[in-house]
């Protein structure tokens, strides 16, 4: 039983660290801020979650408290990371850093038409 | 050995961020660099087995220093070169 948990924990840690690496690579390689946010948020969220849970699994037999604390950290990360990346994306759009669009066939940027009105509404 | 490598890596990162914060003309970038410094500093204190100092650094550095620096930027100027062009700094002090 202990070996099973060790294998699960080790695998989760390894997968997590690979995804953390991919998150770093993603924000380096992607061409504009929105794509960077996409790669960064997704990869680091899953990477961090799986690594922390892996640590919890390694300890689950000696000390269940590690698992509980790992779970609460994971829940908070899963809730808060998308919020911050959303806030950043909206802020960047408001600063008129429009997203990169490769093949423009008309309506690829649906947000542009409403973003002007939003500013006025917000100021109210 | 591993700890030494980790500590060296983090120190290098922190030094780089600190130099970046000083050299940078855009003060907003310097503020973000300050955030990186406090992040790395937390990890360093943690590695040096001082969790209470690390917790203090984490609690202060994560948002409070950022907001105070940002309010300072808002009340003065964002770019260092605008320093003489606008009289904003003067009116902020008054």
């Amino acid at each position: 039983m202990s070996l099973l948990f060790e294998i699960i924990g080790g695998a989760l840690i390894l997968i997590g660290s690979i995804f953390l690496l991919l998150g770093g690579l993603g924000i380096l390689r992607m061409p504009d801020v929105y794509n960077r946010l996409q790669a960064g948020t997704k990869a680091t969220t899953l990477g961090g979650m799986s690594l922390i849970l892996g640590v919890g699994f390694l300890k689950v037999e000696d000390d269940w408290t590690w698992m509980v604390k790992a779970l609460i950290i994971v829940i908070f990360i899963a809730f808060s990371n998308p919020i911050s990346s959303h806030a950043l994306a909206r802020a960047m759009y408001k600063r008129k850093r429009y997203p990169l669009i490769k093949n423009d066939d008309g309506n690829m940027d649906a947000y542009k038409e409403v973003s002007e009105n939003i500013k006025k509404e917000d100021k109210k | 050995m591993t700890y030494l490598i980790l500590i060296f890596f983090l120190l290098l990162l922190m030094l780089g961020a600190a130099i970046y914060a000083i050299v940078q003309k855009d003060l907003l970038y310097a503020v973000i660099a300050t955030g990186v410094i406090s992040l790395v500093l937390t990890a360093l204190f943690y590695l040096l087995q001082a969790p209470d100092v690390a917790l203090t650094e984490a609690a202060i550095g994560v948002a409070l220093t950022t907001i105070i620096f940002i309010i300072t930027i808002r009340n003065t100027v964002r770019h260092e070169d605008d320093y003489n062009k606008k009289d904003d700094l003067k009116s902020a002090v008054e």
Partner: protein
Amino acid sequence: MKKFIVIITLATLGFYLGQTFYELGFGDARFEHGVKDIYLEKTVSELHVANTITSIIVSFRGFDTLGEVTVLFLAATALGGILYKRRHHVGDRSVLFSASRIVRSGSKLLFPAVILLGVYVFVHGHLSPGGGFQGGTIVATGFLLMLLAYENFKVSHHVLSYIESFAGIFFVLFGLAGFYNGGTFLENFMPVGTMNNLFSGGVIPIIYILVGFKVAAELTGLIYTVLHEKD
């Protein structure tokens, strides 16, 4: 002439100061049987506290902590005075406009949890690497989140100042109670309990709760003042 007197005075002062330091033996290993061992021993035998640093900060060196909290209060006041500025003239609000709906709902959801984390940190100051200052800062960060997300989030200045004053007064009263019972400022006079329980460490958790309230009120007031704009 004036400068001459100043230089003479400073030189005299410097000479005596240097002599004093010389006699003290600055940097000598005079404290080899000094306070360190007493602290380490007393922490376990008398106070039953897991966190030695906490016991030093709050109990053995409690008077210094009072000074530190005062310094923090002064620093917060001075920073508020410098950064406060009537700039936008947009009325009675902390930020110019509310955040997007996702950020608002998210901060509503996370705000109680952040406050609870802060309270957890300062209630468990004697068991974990936390403490009053850290917990208070975390609570203030939670209020910062709400102030950023909502344009009309109100924090009552009166309540904040009352909390701060009462926390300070009770800190001093507990310290003086130590005088009354034992002989020194913040001498422990309450039952110490068993180690690693929540109700242990005598007076330390109470002091940390008071410090936590004080720091939280100070920093929240500071952020609120510098974000807030009046007509």
